[in-house]
C-alpha cells in the first residue's frame, strides 16, 4: 500500500471520468503518432522520388566540381572507379554522366538547355529516365546520335521525334562544342525545370563535343536504402582514396540538393509547433477533469492533512494520479496510432492530388506513413510534457490547501 497504489485506486474511483480523461490523452497521442508518421513518410517518399529521379543517393565528383559545376573540373579513370563503386556494399547501380550547358536550335528557334551525357544501360539502373518517356523510345546503345528531350523544350522548339537538333556550347578547353542530335524520344519528369531544359544524349557524344577526352562530371549512385548513405559515403571515400583517385569527392544528396533537406527541417519544426498547440487544447480539457477530481476530494485532503500527511506527500500523490492516467492514455494512444500507421505503411494513403499539382510541386498522391522512434518519441514527449504541466496545478493546489478550510468543505 504505497502512494502509487493509493493513486491507482483513486483513478478507479470515478471510472467514467478516468476513462474519458485517458481517452482524450489517447486520442491526442493517436493523432500525433499518425500525422507525424505521415509527415515523416511524405519526406521519405519525397527523398526517394528525387533520389530515384536523377540525383541518386550519392554522387562521386571531382573535388571542387560542386557547386560551380565547371565542366572543366572532370573526373578521369571512370571505368576503374565504377568498378570499385559496383563492388561496394548497398550499391544498387551507378551511372557516369557529363553535365554541360548549351544552346539548342531547331529551325529558327533556339533555347538554353541542360545537356546530360549518359550511359543508357547504366542510367536505366540509377534513374527513372527510361520510365518517363511519353513519345518515341529510350536511347539506343549503338545509336550515339540519339537524344531524349524534355517535352516542353521540344514544344518550344517546335521539334518532334525524328527531327534533328543542333547544340552549341563551350568545351572544357574553351573551344566550341557543337554537334547534331536526332530526337529519339520526349520525356516528362513532372519537374518543370527538367521538362523545359533537359536533353539526354550518349556520354561519348557529349564527351567528344565538349573536348573532355573520356572525362566525366559525376557518377550517380543508387543505394538499396538511404539510411546506409552516410556509411557508404565514408566507405567509398576511403576506397577511392586507397586506389589513387585522390581528386574524387563523394557527396550525399543533401549536399547536392540542400534545399530539400532544409525544407524538410522547416516543415518538421512547424509541424511540431502545430501539434503542440493541438495537444495544448486537449490539455485544457484534461486539466479540467484533473481539477474536477481535485474539487471532489477537498474534504479528504483536509483529513489527510489532519492525519499528518505532509504537503509534499499530498502533492506527489495527486501528481502521480494524474500521471498514471496520462500514462495509460499515452500507452493506448501510441499503440492505436502505431497500428494505424503499420496498416498503411506499405499500401500508402492516396491523397488524390491533381496532375497539375503533382507536376508543379513534384508531389506524389500516395503517401506511405512511416513509424520510427523519432515519431514515437516526439508524440509521447509532447503529450507527456503538456500533461505534466497541466497536472501541476491541482497537485500544488491540494498541497497548499488550508487544512481547516478543506475540512469544512463538503
Amino acid at each position: 500500500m504505497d502512494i502509487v497504489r493509493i493513486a491507482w485506486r483513486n483513478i478507479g474511483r470515478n471510472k467514467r471520468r478516468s476513462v474519458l480523461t485517458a481517452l482524450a490523452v489517447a486520442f491526442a497521442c493517436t493523432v500525433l503518432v499518425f500525422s507525424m508518421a505521415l509527415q515523416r513518410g511524405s519526406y521519405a517518399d519525397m527523398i526517394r522520388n528525387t533520389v530515384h529521379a536523377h540525383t541518386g543517393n550519392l554522387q562521386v565528383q571531382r573535388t571542387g566540381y560542386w557547386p560551380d559545376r565547371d565542366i572543366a573540373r572532370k573526373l578521369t579513370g571512370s571505368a576503374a572507379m565504377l568498378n570499385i563503386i559496383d563492388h561496394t556494399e548497398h550499391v544498387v547501380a551507378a551511372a557516369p554522366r557529363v553535365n554541360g550547358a548549351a544552346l539548342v536550335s531547331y529551325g529558327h528557334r533556339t533555347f538554353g538547355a541542360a545537356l546530360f551525357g549518359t550511359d543508357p544501360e547504366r542510367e536505366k539502373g540509377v534513374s527513372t529516365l527510361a520510365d518517363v518517356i511519353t513519345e518515341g523510345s529510350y536511347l539506343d546503345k549503338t545509336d550515339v546520335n540519339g537524344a531524349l528531350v524534355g517535352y516542353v523544350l521540344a514544344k518550344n522548339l517546335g521539334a518532334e521525334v525524328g527531327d534533328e537538333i543542333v547544340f552549341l556550347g563551350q568545351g572544357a578547353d574553351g573551344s566550341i562544342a557543337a554537334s547534331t542530335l536526332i530526337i529519339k524520344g520526349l520525356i516528362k519528369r513532372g519537374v518543370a525545370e527538367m521538362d523545359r531544359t533537359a536533353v539526354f544524349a550518349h556520354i561519348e557524344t557529349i564527351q567528344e563535343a565538349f573536348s573532355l577526352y573520356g572525362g566525366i562530371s559525376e557518377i550517380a549512385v543508387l543505394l538499396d536504402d538511404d539510411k546506409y548513405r552516410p556509411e557508404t559515403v565514408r566507405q567509398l571515400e576511403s576506397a577511392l582514396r586507397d586506389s589513387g583517385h585522390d581528386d574524387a569527392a563523394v557527396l550525399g544528396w543533401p549536399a547536392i540538393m540542400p534545399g530539400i533537406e532544409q525544407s524538410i527541417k522547416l516543415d518538421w519544426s512547424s509541424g511540431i509547433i502545430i501539434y503542440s498547440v493541438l495537444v495544448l487544447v486537449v490539455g485544457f480539457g484534461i486539466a479540467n477533469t484533473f481539477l474536477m477530481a481535485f474539487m471532489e476530494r477537498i474534504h479528504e485532503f483536509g483529513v489527510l492533512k489532519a492525519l499528518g500527511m505532509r504537503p509534499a506527500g499530498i502533492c506527489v500523490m495527486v501528481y502521480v494520479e494524474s500521471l498514471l492516467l496520462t500514462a495509460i492514455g499515452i500507452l493506448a494512444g501510441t499503440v492505436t496510432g502505431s497500428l494505424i500507421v503499420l496498416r498503411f505503411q506499405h499500401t500508402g494513403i492516396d491523397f488524390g492530388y491533381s496532375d497539375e499539382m503533382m507536376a508543379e510541386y513534384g508531389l506524389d498522391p500516395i503517401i506511405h506513413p512511416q513509424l520510427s522512434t523519432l515519431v514515437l518519441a516526439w508524440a509521447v514527449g509532447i503529450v507527456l510534457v503538456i500533461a505534466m504541466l497541466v497536472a501541476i496545478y491541482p497537485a500544488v493546489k491540494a498541497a497548499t490547501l488550508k487544512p481547516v478550510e478543506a475540512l469544512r468543505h463538503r
Partner: protein
Amino acid sequence: MPLIEVENIHKEYEDGKTTVHALRGIDLTIDAGEFTAIAGPSGSGKTTLLNLISGLDAVSAGNITLDSVDISSASARKLSQLRLEKIGFVFQAYNLVPVLTARENVEFTMLLQGVPSGERRKRSLDMLERVGLGEYADRKPTAMSGGQQQRVAVARAIVTHPRVVLADEPTANLDSETGSRLLDLMKRLNAEEDMTFVFSTHDPMVMDYSTRLVRLHDGKVKSDERK
C-alpha cells in the same frame, strides 16, 4: 504534568466585512490521561478550539503548547510532523479514505510514519480486533455502517500511540446506542493505554462519560469540572 496548555487564546474569523470572534480568551490545561469533554451550544467555539490545539488553524492571539512544543510558532511542515507523531484524529463523519479498506485506513498513519509493511499489517489487524472489527479488515468504508466507520477511525487514531486523541463530535452522526458503544471503546482505551482523549459534543449522554467537562459559551469557558 500538563500535556496541553492553552493560554489566553483568541480566534477571530474575517467573514467578508464582519469579524467573528469565535474564541475570546480561553485558558485551559489538560493533563495526560484525562478524558475530557468540551461541551457547549452550536457556535460556541468547540471545533475552533480543537482545530487550534491540533495546529490545523492558527490562533489570533495567545499560546498553545502541546507536549512541550509551542504550536503557535511552528511551520506547516513541523505541524504535520507533530500531528503525525502526537495527535490522533476522529471527526464527526466522512473521515476515512474511501478508496482504502478498513485495514489500509488504519495502516495509513503508520505508512506516513515509515513503519515497515509487515509490522503495519500486524498492528492494524490487532487494532481492528480490539475495536471489534476483525472481520471487517478488508471492507471499504462504503460497505460499513457509520458506527463501524467511526470505530475504524478510532483504531486509526490510536494505532500509532499518540499523546492525545482529538475527536470533534465523534458521535453526532450515530444513533445513541452506537454512540455509547463508541464512547465505551474510547473510555476503555483511555483506561488501558492511559491515553488522553479530548472530544467535543453537545449531547448530554456523551458528557456523562467524561471525567472532566469543560463548557464553552460564546467563545469563553463557562465552567470546568472534574468528576
